[in-house]
């Protein structure tokens, strides 16, 4: 397989569009997103429900059910090859082996009728050609590695015998058992309690540091991406609204939507009072307004926002924002303490 280019990108997504045909019309769930991921980096994709963040990643993995969905354009270059043009067999080989995923609810990925050891062994037997003995040994090693106590004895349990946090550990063990180069984690801690969330995030961080894998972390929680990522993409209505290095995005957001999101998270250290709120509701993707999809909720919107689709403005070498007034919003964020 081709090597990583001189630019160091493991993954390059260009103009990806995934549409769904519904009774209501065409839903443009992902509508022309582009991003890059360097080897060893963690990218956060932040958005609310319906923003397209999960569909984007299912598209990268070629897991969009067709119909009703269809990837209508774009390319997903993984180590120089376009995933969208691979044969089904090649895709299967990629998934699980070189690209692995973990989801919000481990029970959707774990087979409830199969012992955990068996599920872990399947992947390495299939992808790495391990013998049964070797695969079992490796499975127990992986379970120990993700912090399952008494892994040797508990390996033969069924998923329901584990707590939510432990199941998420099992899924991480499974995802990492073939040493993938890219791990996609879709809301991996959303269903967990906060103390368990802290455990799982620490675990992902440690394993990433050890393995050197790249990670895409999809979440609605700005707090989670703040501590975990190098770069962040903010999605809204199927579009990338802003992308920037993590610190830059939090300190100098250049998009009114990002600014609004950041301000609407309660700060435990601040005084109480009225919380900033973004008015209105997320748009109906089948009936998007003309112009900027965020305009009806945006405090900065003017006539042009309701008529013309906004440009993707470059604010700094690595920082882009989809907004007619990106420069102004960026300047405003920069002047604030």
């Amino acid at each position: 397989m081709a090597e990583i280019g001189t630019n160091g990108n493991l993954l390059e997504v260009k103009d990806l569009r995934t549409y769904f045909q519904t009774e209501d019309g065409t839903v443009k769930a992902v509508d022309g997103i582009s991003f890059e991921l360097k080897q060893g980096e963690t990218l956060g994709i932040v958005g609310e429900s319906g923003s397209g963040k999960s569909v984007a990643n299912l598209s990268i993995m070629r897991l969009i059910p067709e119909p009703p969905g269809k990837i209508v354009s774009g390319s997903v270059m993984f180590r120089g090859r376009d995933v969208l043009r691979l044969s089904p067999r090649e895709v299967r080989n990629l998934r699980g082996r070189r690209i692995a995923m973990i989801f919000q609810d481990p029970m959707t990925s774990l087979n409830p009728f199969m012992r955990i050891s068996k599920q872990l062994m399947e992947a390495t037997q299939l992808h790495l050609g391990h013998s049964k003995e070797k695969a079992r040994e490796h499975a127990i090693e992986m379970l120990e590695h993700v912090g399952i106590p008494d892994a040797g004895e508990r390996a033969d349990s069924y998923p329901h015998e584990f707590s939510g946090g432990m199941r998420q550990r099992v899924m991480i063990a499974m995802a990492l058992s073939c040493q993938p180069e890219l791990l996609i984690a879709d809301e991996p801690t959303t269903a967990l309690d906060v103390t368990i969330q802290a455990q799982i995030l620490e675990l992902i961080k440690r394993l990433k540091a050890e393995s050197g894998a790249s990670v895409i972390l999809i979440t609605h929680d700005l707090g989670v991406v703040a501590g975990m990522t190098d770069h962040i993409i903010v999605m809204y209505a199927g579009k990338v609204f802003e992308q920037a290095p993590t610190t830059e995005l939090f300190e100098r957001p250049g998009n009114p939507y990002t600014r609004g999101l950041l301000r609407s998270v309660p700060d435990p250290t601040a005084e109480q009072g009225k919380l900033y709120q973004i008015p209105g509701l997320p748009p109906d993707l089948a009936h998007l307004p003309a112009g900027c999809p965020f305009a009806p909720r945006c405090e900065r919107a003017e006539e042009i926002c309701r008529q013309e689709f906004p440009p993707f403005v470059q604010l700094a070498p690595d920082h882009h924002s989809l907004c007619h007034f990106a420069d102004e919003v960026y300047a405003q964020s920069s002047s604030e303490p």
Partner: protein
Amino acid sequence: MIDRADKPLISIRDLKVYFPVSGGSLFSRSQRVVKAVDGVTLDIYSGETFGLVGESGCGKSTLGRAILRLIEPTSGQILFRDRDLAHLSKTEMREQRRHLQIIFQDPYASLNPRMTVSQIIGEPIETFRLARGQAKRARVQELMELVGLSARFLKRYPHEFSGGQRQRIGIARALAVDPDFIVADEPISALDVSIQAQIMNLLDRLRREKNLTYLFISHDLRAIRHVSDRVAVMYLGKIVELADGKTVYSQPLMPYTKALISAVPVPDPKVEANRRRIVLEGDVPSPINPPRGCRFHTRCPYAIDACSDVEPKLVQIRPDHFAACIRISPEQPDIERVAPGAAPGLWQHTAGPTT
């Protein structure tokens, strides 16, 4: 603000809610109980938002529902206006529900899908015979406007609304009977970030305008801190710490509370990079067979032998700041000073090179 000279609106005294579970094998059925709420005592004052926070399975929702008798308490008292709700007959309790309402986490599951919004909001008005005919319709419209829903939605069904709008319908229904007290059980947990802020602001405005009192139940520490005047932290059926919201966050006493607060991700990369986080080992133990003594001792880095024997009482450690831990006292409230270095490896750097 709360006037503590007032009598509490709700006084809960040693409330217990036990659920029987059949244990053992099919052939040797032994009755065991889950002690979901195990001796909770607290006062909620008129006009305040009382925050109840804890992880799943700690009993916070059971406590909220038991106050309204949606779940029957096993023992204890729930005093509301000189009546003990825990000991009212079903009919008497139904009358009281006019004053005590609840908002649920998933407004979709709690709204009848076959009823229009106007029927849903109008139902409690009919049940309590508060208005009829034109007066009822006017009242429903007024409630919809109050929660920020357009009156043109009156004839629509719940599935036609987004999660945030459905939560507004749930709030309008709760307000229809002009209650004094509302249990808000994870009212924002199922909502998007931008919508959470809207609902928190709405609840706060309604509290001020309608002189409401809330028991706000959530696992979300950021939200609890924002909305609450006072906060109680629950762990395995017991309240382990209680103080005003600011104090609980800035000067927590209990090792469990400290761990909870340090586990909350902060939306600031600089803070996250330099933050010391307490990562608790293990899961919350099963409430069927909770640990003896202090229920947190199995995960507590400061636990000593006595912690597995003595059940700690919730006592005042600082003025208006209560905690249930035998290792701290008013004389020495700081667990780190009581047991310096007792928790090697507990404090972990979340970032930076490991040494």
